[in-house]
């Protein structure tokens, strides 16, 4: 079970969190023309990287904040976590 540092609460076990997918995805701005390809990439297409990856976790049984976690998908090592409004 991973041990995830929540920037708001501290180190907490994985079972307090819900996984939220790829943290590097950016939603296209509202009211902006978006090509089919761009939209498909936002909604459907995800990379499955081996190694360092930024992902979202939701501290669902804690402070209920979404956080960004940089994790190695092979070793599960966590390098950095930041609150949702920051970039890694």
């Amino acid at each position: 079970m991973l041990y995830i540092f929540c920037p708001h609460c501290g180190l907490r076990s994985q079972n307090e969190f819900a996984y939220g997918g790829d943290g590097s995805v950016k939603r296209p701005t509202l009211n902006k023309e978006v090509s089919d390809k761009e939209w498909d990439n936002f909604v459907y297409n995800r990379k499955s990287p081996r190694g360092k990856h930024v992902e979202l976790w939701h501290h669902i049984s804690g402070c209920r904040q979404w956080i960004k976690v940089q994790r190695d998908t092979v070793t599960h090592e966590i390098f950095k976590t930041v609150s949702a409004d920051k970039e890694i």
Partner: protein
Amino acid sequence: MSQTYRLNNSGQINRDKKISFKFNGKKYFGYEGDTLASALLANGIHLVGRSFKYHRPRGFFGAGVDEPYAIVQMVRNKETEPNVRATEQELFEGLEAKSVNCWPSVNFDIGAINNFFNKFLPAGFYYKTFMWPKSFWYRIYEPFIRKAAGFGVASTKYDSERYEHKYEYCDLLIAGSGPAGLSGAYAAAKNGASVILAEEKPRFGGSLLTSEVNIGNQSGKDWAEKIIAELKEMPNVTVKNRSQVFGYYDHNMLVMSEKVSDHLPKTKKFSPKQRLWYIRAKEVLISSGSIERPIVFGNNDTPGVVLASAAKEYLKVYGVLVGKKPLIFTNNDSAYETAIEFKKNGIDPIILDSRNAPNSEIIEEAKNLGIHIKFSYVVVVANGYKKVKSAQIAQISPDKKNLGKIEKINCDCICVSGFWTPTIHLSSQSGNKTKFDEKIDAFVPGKSKQNETTVGSANGIFNLEETISTSFEKGYQLSKKITNNDNKVSVPQVSEKKFTNHDKFWCVPLPNKKNFKRFLDFQNDVTVSDIELALREGYRSIEHVKRYTTLGMATDQGKTSNLNGLQLVSDVENKVVPSVGHTTFRPPYTPVSIGAIVGREIGKHSKPTRKSPMHSWHEKNNAVFVDAGMWLRPRYYKKANEGLFEASKREAANVRKNVGVCDVTTLGKIDIKGPDAAEFLNRVYTNAWLKLPVGKARYGVMLREDGIVMDDGTTTRISENHYHMTTTTAQAANVLSHLEYYLQLVWPELNVNVVSTTEQWAGAAIAGPKSRRLLQKLFPNKDLSNEGLPFMGYSDGDLFGVPTRIFRISFSGELAYELNVQSDFGNFMWEKIIELGNEFGIQPYGTEALSTLRIEMGHVAGSELDGRTIPYDNGLDGLISRKKDFIGKRSLNREAFIAKSRQKVVGVVPLDKKTSIPEGSHLVKDASAKLPNPKLGHISASCWSVEYNNPFSLAIVKDGKNMIGKKLYALSPLKNKSIPVEIVSSHYVDPKGERVRS
């Protein structure tokens, strides 16, 4: 029967406490402190089971967790348990155990015929034999495999025992209480670290319990007892015996299974049978020791062939002789301790040592004691079927390839030692890449991956002095790293006999023209020739060889067999062991009971049960409940002999005719506040929200980014910057996460706050033509006219002193209101509604009537908003704003979503107006068409229309609106039904929606 193999005055058992037990129905005696294995051996019982494949007689091989044979079916306090190792099961009064894998009895086992047909059971025999002919599978092969497989029978009864989980945090977790573990624990604890010391056995001390060493001027055993006693007194130390750390997971999370009560006749009150510990340790000291491996020779599975270390443990801990004419067969010095122990107890052993004239302190001692030693000698084959009777031995050439003349020697047991294998399971599980140590012919941990350090013989160190000094040092260093304390205790003086090198020899060659079975894996019956065959058939990867032959795949996970298997592969392949590699170590290290894994999360405890504040009223009024997520909701209120159908019809009809009340507390409620709340809702919902006035509610639909409907509900503007959102019961948690996601990640610039208030409000829906008259009684001073509180209006009220939110919203399609009060007043509100509603003929209604009412009105709900439909499918086109952007809007342009023939929600009525259509039925043109019959759609929800008194269903059908008026068939192969139906409008009752506005 007397304990004829029990010594008079050695061992660490309590001879004052005699214990009776039963094995295969026969009564025996042992002592407190025995294991089932030691007590049986004391009674001269060697035959305990039959082997897996050939059903050969099997006895005891080890004395602990490595035991491959002695697996029994236990009965304890009327509960039966399979797969129990007799070497680990402590004896208690009244214990009952049975042999497994034999029929009709362990002494006469019909399956043993496999032994004579063993040519047909080679490596991969499952894959080869049971493939053909196909028709044999169910009738012959499967029953055969089922009968032959497994080690015991699982109980079909509910397990009445209690199991617990415990979460723990510590600075240092130490796995194993041998010399390394004790030293590390002591040094760390004295330096202020919080320590958990885990020992799998009942007794602490590991190898110190059986070795002849001196630590700090005491015997090793006394030193261990002193250290443990001191550790137990320290407040920063938790010491646990009968506790196996079996898994090393990510981020230094380890799991330990504590057998709290398995050694007692009955679990004590308020105590669990077993406890599973989830331990998050800052550092882990792995002191799991090592396991002796055998030397492979002919018929080396005969009962009476035991590990030399096990024979020593039976002598020193239990005062039990595994035999009275022991033959010791070794390639190293450690088995000499076993021989000396026999000699000291008046038994004359013979040592066969594969080495050519080795020299060491302990060999000298054995010689001086007059023990008969034959160097360069090996056991070729064990004689005897159910017990060793003699052995054929021979001299072996220095290159270990040729045997001399075969001689016969009488013996009743063969104590074998092929040197020691470090127990590296935990370090390997942590991600540590192990490395092969040529000096000891075994793998040892490599570079640490997580915060783990391996010490002692688990790290390949077999020298006690070095073990103790490095473990003290590691304990001190690790604790210093964590606590910053600098209190170093002194390392005690250690004296032990010096050993010389072991012989790199592990398998005795076959004599000319002989083909004895030489076992590698004793539990799965894998022999040397099986591995050779697998290699001849082209298997190369050790992972493939393992799966093909099942080497190391039994419940002992190859603790005594893996390394010899690797040696064999490397010999045949002419590779060195490190390039063969080893198979992956995976948790658990040793079997863990399902009960312990499940813990308390069984039955009602498996998830929380959510109840509304009015729950006890429902109970008192004969509600029949239904699970709605975690909630318990009244499905209907039973009157007299009514069933679900009659009751729900009555309740729904009463809403249409008079007035009904429904508990809607379970609806998700989210409080939304902030100056940008309207803008936020405008982005979340598909329709327009910027102009909703204060005191008004609006129905909204929200989408996922892929255009699929996520949820629907009403949201009310309570005040300028304050909204009250409702969600469906099922989606409440997802919607909150969804809103938080957009507020925190996507649009952090919006000044909005959301919080769940589901639990804070109790809700009651009052529906029916007489609901306004009832409401006027509840709020006498309120203007509740159609102008005073119009449809989709909101107002606050005073319910006899209780502040109330009044919403004029409707799910039933009738004139209806929803009242919300603070949860504590929920019951008060409910009882008032019933009390004052009596004169209007009020009846409570459950979820079944609620469904009926919404279905015949054509209101879509969860069964239509099923995660596959878009707003257009559900006739919600009017709610899609053309003017603004919102979550998921861009996806609605997708080609498939705008296709003309897209599915739509429609109504369905059976032509006979009698036959209810099962939900999930497929709609087809031709009921007798050839399969697969082209499907036009499916029935999503069915009810009995109380308005028209006939069945009515909703369906999602291709090209829906153009299908209205068409006649189709609803097919339900599951219920064997084919019903002629007509497609109608989904708005079956009050299609213009006049009632809700009346």
